[in-house]
Each structure stands twice: as structure tokens, then as C-alpha cells.
């Protein structure tokens, strides 16, 4: 049983600690995330959910411990390889991280352009994805001129447009009404069914209640024992 787990784990965390100066944000996290798993990370505000995701896509370095992504040890990865590691992930950032001076279209397209895809392909994929999230008529708008929910939908479109292996969603429905949230979840589920690994961090209990996958809970930087369901 242990061996099968090891084989199918796409992300492995061993005794991971994360400190911000004096603040201990994560303590002794050991967690396997399997290939093609739909995982929820629950927990109250400040529990360290965002921090955990940031360690995965290397926005922050670990203080101690090891993380393996697809067999690569993140603390050993050469600087030049980091962009390619990040392309495995599609990240929906809690604060969206849209470029305010670029149009909606450009914001989404940048992921594909960075991978060197041709203009025609980029255009087709971006338009298609913006249609899925219901933003196809705002292509030329700038993020500051959009509502929070609209910005969030752009952020979702950008995260999934490159068809990543792993989707990391940090409060992906935080600013959305039930209807739009439902659309986003269906979108995430669709990528999950196509083989992607999806990790959703949220403090929204109602979301977790309807969860289709595994749920783990964080509390003050620690994994709640017995939180697995």
C-alpha cells in the first residue's frame, strides 16, 4: 500500500517547516498529493494554506524539510529550471496577481507566449478559455476596471489556459456568487477528469462539505491529525 502511494505521488512533502522571520507559518508538514487527485486544504484564516501552496511553486523557499514535485527536489533545482517547474503548475493566486497595465487578453495570453506558442494558437486558446469563464466580451478591458469576481475569473482562465499538470487554487471562489463559483468548480472538475491534479485551498466550509476528493485541514501551521476523510 505504501509503495503504491509512493508511485503515484506527484507532490511529496517531508517534515516541511516554514518561518517568516519569527513567525512559524508551517510546522512539520508531511503530505503526499497523488497524481490526478482532487485535494482540499481547509483551515481557518492564517492557518498557512497559502504558504503551503507558495512553497510548491517556489514563490517562497522552505525553512527546512524537503519537497519533491514530479520526482524533482525543489531545494536542489537549478535557478534556470525554475520557470519550467512553474509551468507544471497553474496557479490561481489568492490576490489574483493580474498585471494592471495589460489587457485581459494579454494577461491570459502571457502564459502561452512565455512557452513560445504561436500567435494563432495563443489567440484560439485564450479566446476559448475566456469564453468558458464568461469574460469573452471583456478582452480589451484592464483589470483595475473589473469587479473582484471578474478579476478572479480572469485569474482562473490564466491558471488553466496552459493545460497544466497541477492546478493550485488559492480561494478560487472567494469573490464569487454561488452561480459563478459553480462554473469555476465545474471547470476545475473538468481538468481533474482529464487527468490534472487539483489542489484547492479554502476556508469555505460549504465548499469542503460538497467536496469530491480528499480533505486535509491546517490549523496554526500544522496538519490536523485525523483530518483526512
Amino acid at each position, binding site marked *: 500500500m505504501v509503495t503504491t502511494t509512493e508511485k503515484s505521488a506527484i507532490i511529496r512533502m517531508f517534515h516541511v517547516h516554514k518561518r517568516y522571520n519569527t513567525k512559524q507559518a508551517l510546522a512539520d508538514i508531511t503530505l503526499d498529493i497523488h497524481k490526478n487527485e482532487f485535494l482540499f486544504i481547509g483551515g481557518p484564516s492564517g492557518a498557512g494554506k497559502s504558504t503551503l501552496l507558495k512553497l510548491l511553486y517556489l514563490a517562497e523557499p522552505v525553512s527546512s524539510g524537503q519537497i519533491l514535485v514530479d520526482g524533482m527536489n525543489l531545494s536542489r533545482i537549478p535557478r534556470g529550471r525554475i520557470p519550467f517547474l*512553474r509551468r507544471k503548475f497553474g*496557479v490561481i493566486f489568492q490576490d489574483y496577481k493580474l*498585471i494592471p497595465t495589460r489587457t485581459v487578453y494579454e494577461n491570459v495570453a502571457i502564459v502561452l507566449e512565455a512557452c513560445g506558442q504561436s500567435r494563432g494558437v495563443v489567440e484560439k486558446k485564450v479566446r476559448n478559455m475566456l469564453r468558458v469563464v464568461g469574460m469573452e466580451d471583456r478582452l480589451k478591458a484592464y483589470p483595475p476596471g473589473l469587479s473582484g469576481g471578474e478579476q478572479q475569473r480572469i485569474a482562473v482562465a490564466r491558471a488553466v489556459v496552459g493545460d497544466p499538470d497541477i492546478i493550485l487554487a488559492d480561494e478560487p471562489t472567494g469573490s464569487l456568487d454561488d452561480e459563478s463559483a459553480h462554473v469555476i468548480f465545474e471547470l476545475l472538475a473538468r481538468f481533474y477528469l482529464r487527468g490534472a491534479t487539483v489542489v484547492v485551498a479554502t476556508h469555505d466550509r460549504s465548499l469542503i462539505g460538497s467536496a469530491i476528493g480528499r480533505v486535509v485541514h491546517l490549523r496554526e501551521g500544522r496538519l490536523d491529525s485525523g483530518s483526512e476523510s
Partner: protein
Amino acid sequence: MFFHIRKALTDIRENRFLNTVTLFTISLCVLNVCAFCLLYINVQDMFDNWKKGLRVMVYLTPELTDARRQEMTSQLKDMKDVQAVRFISKTQALALMKERMPRQTSLLENLRENPLPDAFEVTLTPQVHSPGKMESLAKTIESLAGVSDVEYGRPWIERFSRFFNLFKLAGYGLGAIFFMATIFITANTIRLILYTRREEMQIMRLVGATDSFINMPYYLEGIIQGGVGGLVGIGLLYGVFSLMGDQFRETLSAEMVKIRFLPLSICILMVCGSMATGLLSAFFSLKQFMKR
């Protein structure tokens, strides 16, 4: 690549003011360096011309026999530093004079007797431009039998040559200063732009863009600025040159030199250099910026 070029152009458009200022600065620097070059090549031309004309006129006594003349020719030819010897008879000299002064033809025509002496024109090898050498050569020639007078070059050519070397040195120094100033100013502009793009660059990095992808537009921006700045600078200089050139040419062409503009190869070299400077500026500012 097209993608990057498009992005660089958009970027330049979005930071119109800063880029105009930079462009202007680059143009002025290129203008200065090119103006110096222009002066340099023209002075060099003039100098070469004078050096080419470095010769000694040997005037002969009237009662010289043909045999003695032949002998003298070979004597002169055998001397060190002598490139060529040409005999100019007094008839030839008079004809030459008439040609050179068409207005005085009637006056010359009325001469009953040709007052000019026969002469040798001795051309020296271009290596001889030390005044000492010339003086001793002139002395040797003067001591030959049948020589009435020796007229020789201008020692100030020597002084001028020394000054010219100094001028060249100053040119290199000036060039280096302008080069550094251009890099400094362009790098600063690009850095200012980078600061406004900090967030954008950070986000691009997080979604998997490589540093070279992120930096490419800024390199191109540097190259474009350098190129356009160079062209504008040379264009300005050409404008000034053609406006003022006419007057200069009038006064200076008497001095047997044609004033010319920089040859195309130098213009191209200047633009390339200016582009390289832009690239280098982008490189420096990005290097400093990425370190943090």
C-alpha cells in the same frame, strides 16, 4: 521574435517622455562623436595632402650645361629620402605660371625675356617629416655645383603633426566619455522603466516565464533606442554639414582639399556602435535590477 519586438515598441510608446529624452541624449552624443570624426577625417585629408606635397625646389644657375644637369639629376636621385626628381625648364615654368594666373597673361606675354630659372622639383618620401632631416638635405643640395637657391618645406608641418596627434588623443578621450555618458543615461532610463514594471515582471516569473523572455523586450528597447538615436544624430550632423558646408567649402577649397562628409562605412559603424551601447545599457540596468 516578432512578439518581443512588438512588445518593445509598445513599451517605448508607453514611456514616450522618458524615451524621447534618452533618444535626444543619445543623438547628441552621437552627433558630438561624429562631428569630431568629421573634423578628424578632413584634417587628416588636408594633412596627407600637404605631406604628399613635401618637396624641395632646387633653382639652378642660368649658365648650367646640359651635361652638368644630367649629372645633377642622378646625384639627386641617389640621395637618401628622395622619391622623385623632375626637371622643370624655365619655359615650362612660365607656361605653368600663365596657366595658374590667367588674368596676368597679358603681363607675362609682354615679358621680353623669361625671368624664371630652370629648376628641379625634388619630391621626398612621405617618411621624411622631421625638420632636421629636411634641413640637412637642403644643405647638401645647396652645396652642389650649379645650384643657385633651394626652397624647401614648411617646418610648421612638423609642429602641426605633433598637435594633430594630441588632437587624436583628445578625440579618443572625448569618445570614451561620451560612450560612458550614453550608457549611464540610457541605463538609467531603462532602470526607471523597470521600476514601473516590477510587479509585472514578478508576475510573469510566477507564471513560468524565463528571465530571458522577460528581459528580451528591454534588450530590444536598448538596441532600438541606440539605433534610432544614432541615425538621428548623424542626420542632424548631415543637416548642419550641408547648411554650413557650402561656406566652408568656398573658403577652404582654396587649400586644395575637398571637404567631405563621413563615408558611409563610418556612418554605419557609428549606428552599430550606438546600438551596441544601447544593448550594453540594457544589460547593465537589468543586471543591477535582477540582483535584488
